[in-house]
């Protein structure tokens, strides 16, 4: 038999001035199941809460309704009070007679009637509430970071430095990502390698970090605190354990003219190679598709050269299964293919290059040892044209978004060029200069004022070759007239785009992505680091175009989130989750398609001999967020949502 206590709060005058509380108490006291109904000036106050607690104990109440403010305000307060008095905190409902009644109405009798109805309906609900208990999920306190660029490195280091194990998975032969390709970094012009390589070394030597390079994530199973990840370790054909990185094999390899991916094709590599000199780990890989031994069984010069016999042509890919509690996705970006701009002649004219090419030209460790030389004939370019937004903010051909970093790196390129080619001339075609960030606007102003970067506001319509020059035809919008520049080299500030396989990867790991393929955060403003899948976090440019400081900040934020998760052995979750009735579930799997969190799975029910009786839906309490979409989807009424059950809601409606 229900024994409900109803506590009507005056909230000072806030409620009492518009709701006739004495009338409310009189009416509610008559309601079946109501054991006690009292009013008080402030139930949220210390003595008010004491009154509630005392009533629970003295009357052995089975449920409590506090007719007061919004549950968004004081639900937690009164849940705590209930728990302290020995009543399950989920046996409480708040009747909102302030925000949604006394404050918004002007007629006292109407407001009183409404307050009575609201309270009644919640009494009927609370009669059907069930005691609920927080769900405890065990947590494997080891994290996986996918992607070994600056974001992944930062996240891994932060987690590892806090004393937790990290597995860092990188699909390239070396960690470092795009940052390792960059020459200098804005707005300070530190050399990128100089600030990155110590981090790379720290990562690989860290006792808490296991670095898996040349490896890819193939499968992710499980849920927050309990993921099982299958990682494919691609065969390097070089034994990691013994290789000293002396580089003799690379020197002797006869296949040398392979365009280097790291140098964006501006330099060459051999068939056995490390992507760049400072690669971490400094262990080469054999490019199977180019290696003569794999092509025709001959050569094997590297094997003969290697003094410690580290070459192993028989190596196979291996699959490793790793248990982790949380995952950081830091898979980075790619530079957009500019071939869609036929009028700019990318791919047709060797001296039309992308910003990333320019980085390699300007890099001291690049193919020209830091000298600006144009790719076609190695001549020093006298005039360089930069075209911003070559792909970004272009609805018709490119992408709609702003790639965010191009204004800054173009200013940097113009600066680096003027530092290296003193009498050189630059022209930068731009739409807007977007230099928001610490020291950023000062930086672009410096490019203009000290390094004489020639900014031209307008777009370029065409680039063509004439007498060994690239003729760039465009418009100067500010002067309102066409311009033509005879350039020696053109640099396109191409858009940052998601990795080409980002969408496939999102499906493997079970996170959302936007129309472009950037991964979706749980909430753009308030949960920018988490994904909608609990336990999976984002860092860096895989979420949206970002510069280095933003990527690093987000990586540290992701690490902080994970360390919070790892601070306890068990994870406590709100018990408002869906539950399946095995006896009525027909196994139509409608709920499986409805669930936004992939929290519902199939479960076999077997008899004691192990024979299958039936397959039913089963809710994973670690993943379920309690939205209840599956409940109203279920054709046989076999799923219910704790705290908002069908019984409770119907009772609430019936009482209105």
């Amino acid at each position: 038999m229900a024994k409900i206590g109803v506590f009507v709060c005056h909230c000072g005058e806030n409620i009492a001035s518009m709701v006739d509380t004495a009338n409310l108490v009189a009416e509610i006291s008559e309601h079946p199941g109501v054991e006690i109904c009292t009013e008080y000036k402030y139930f949220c106050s210390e003595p008010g809460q004491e009154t509630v607690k005392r009533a629970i104990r003295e009357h052995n109440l089975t449920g409590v309704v506090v007719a007061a403010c919004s549950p968004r305000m004081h639900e937690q307060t009164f849940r705590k009070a209930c728990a302290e008095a020995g009543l399950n905190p989920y046996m409480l409902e708040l009747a909102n007679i302030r925000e949604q009644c006394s404050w918004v109405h002007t007629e006292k009798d109407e407001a009183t009637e409404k307050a009575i109805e609201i309270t009644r309906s919640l009494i009927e609900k609370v009669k059907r509430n069930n005691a609920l208990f927080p769900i405890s999920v065990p947590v494997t306190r080891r994290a996986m970071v996918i992607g070994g660029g600056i974001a992944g490195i930062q996240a891994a280091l932060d987690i590892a430095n806090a004393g937790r194990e990290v597995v860092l998975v990188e699909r390239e032969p070396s960690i470092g990502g795009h940052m390792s390709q960059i020459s200098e970094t804005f707005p300070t012009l530190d050399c990128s390698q100089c600030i990155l390589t110590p981090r790379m070394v720290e990562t690989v030597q860290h006792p808490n970090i296991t670095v898996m390079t040349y490896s890819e994530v193939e499968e992710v199973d499980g849920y927050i605190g309990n993921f099982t990840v299958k990682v494919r370790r691609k065969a390097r054909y070089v034994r990691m354990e013994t290789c000293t990185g002396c580089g003799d094999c690379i020197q002797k390899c006869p296949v040398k003219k392979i365009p280097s991916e790291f140098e964006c094709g501006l330099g060459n590599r051999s068939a056995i190679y490390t992507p760049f000199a400072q690669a971490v780990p400094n262990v080469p890989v054999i490019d199977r598709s180019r290696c003569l031994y794999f092509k025709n069984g001959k050569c094997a010069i590297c094997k003969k050269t290697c003094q410690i016999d580290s070459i192993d042509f028989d190596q196979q890919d291996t699959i490793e299964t790793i248990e982790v509690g949380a995952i950081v996705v830091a898979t980075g970006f790619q530079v957009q293919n500019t071939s869609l701009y036929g009028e700019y002649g990318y791919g047709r004219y060797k001296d039309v290059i992308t910003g990333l090419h320019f980085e390699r030209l300007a890099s001291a460790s690049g193919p020209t040892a830091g000298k600006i030389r144009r790719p076609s004939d190695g001549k020093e370019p006298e005039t360089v044209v930069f075209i911003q937004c070559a792909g970004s903010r272009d609805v018709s051909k490119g992408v709609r978004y702003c790639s965010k970093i191009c204004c800054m790196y173009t200013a940097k390129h113009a600066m680096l060029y003027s530092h290296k080619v003193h009498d050189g001339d630059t022209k930068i075609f731009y739409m807007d200069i977007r230099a928001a960030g610490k020291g950023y606007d000062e930086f672009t102003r410096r490019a203009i004022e000290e390094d004489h970067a020639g900014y031209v506001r307008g777009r370029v319509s065409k680039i063509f070759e004439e007498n060994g020059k690239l003729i760039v035809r465009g418009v100067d919008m500010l002067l309102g007239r066409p311009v033509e520049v005879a350039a020696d080299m053109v640099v396109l500030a191409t858009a940052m785009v998601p990795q080409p396989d980002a969408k496939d990867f999102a499906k493997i790991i079970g996170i959302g992505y936007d129309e472009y393929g950037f991964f979706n955060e749980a909430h753009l403003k308030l949960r920018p680091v988490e994904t909608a899948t609990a336990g999976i976090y984002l860092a860096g440019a895989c979420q949206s175009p970002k510069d280095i400081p933003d990527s690093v900040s987000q990586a540290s934020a992701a690490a902080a989130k994970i360390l919070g998760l790892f601070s306890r052995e068990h994870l406590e979750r709100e018990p408002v989750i869906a539950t399946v009735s095995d006896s009525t579930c027909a196994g139509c799997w409608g709920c499986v398609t409805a669930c936004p969190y992939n929290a519902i799975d199939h479960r076999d029910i077997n008899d004691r001999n192990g024979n299958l009786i039936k397959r039913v839906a089963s809710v994973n309490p670690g993943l379920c967020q309690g939205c209840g979409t599956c409940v109203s989807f279920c054709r046989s009424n076999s799923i219910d949502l704790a705290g908002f059950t069908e019984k409770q809601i119907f009772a609430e409606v019936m009482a209105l």
Partner: protein
Amino acid sequence: MSEPFEPKIVAFVCTYCTYAGADLAGTSRMKYASNVRMVRLPCTGRISPMFILKALQKGADGVLVSGCHPGDCHFAQGNYHARRRWTVFRALLAFTGIPEQRIRFSWISAAEGAKFADLINTLTEDIRKLGPFDQYHELQKVIETQATY
């Protein structure tokens, strides 16, 4: 009938957007008609068409279903499910002969207190014009007296 008809409206709302929007209308002391009774649910995805029918059966003259704007759902997709369900449910309404105007589907965010107050006022006015929802109750009388099964 001299006194104006006061309709009874039941609102099924999600706790994250519309319920919060209604709270905001309260904290901003906006005034609106007192005809609506709110039923708080975690998400519009939780709202079964049966709730709506039950409310109408129990004497509601109008029903409001409101949640987060598309794309803003706290549960990522719940409101899309609610929207799809509503599309299908409309056909059932037509079949049962319940005028579609008695049910309002809307998006109100946690920041739209004023929109909530406006909606309640216009909805109340619209339902008032439609008059009491008696069809079902009359039908029930017919069923009780004449049904042969």
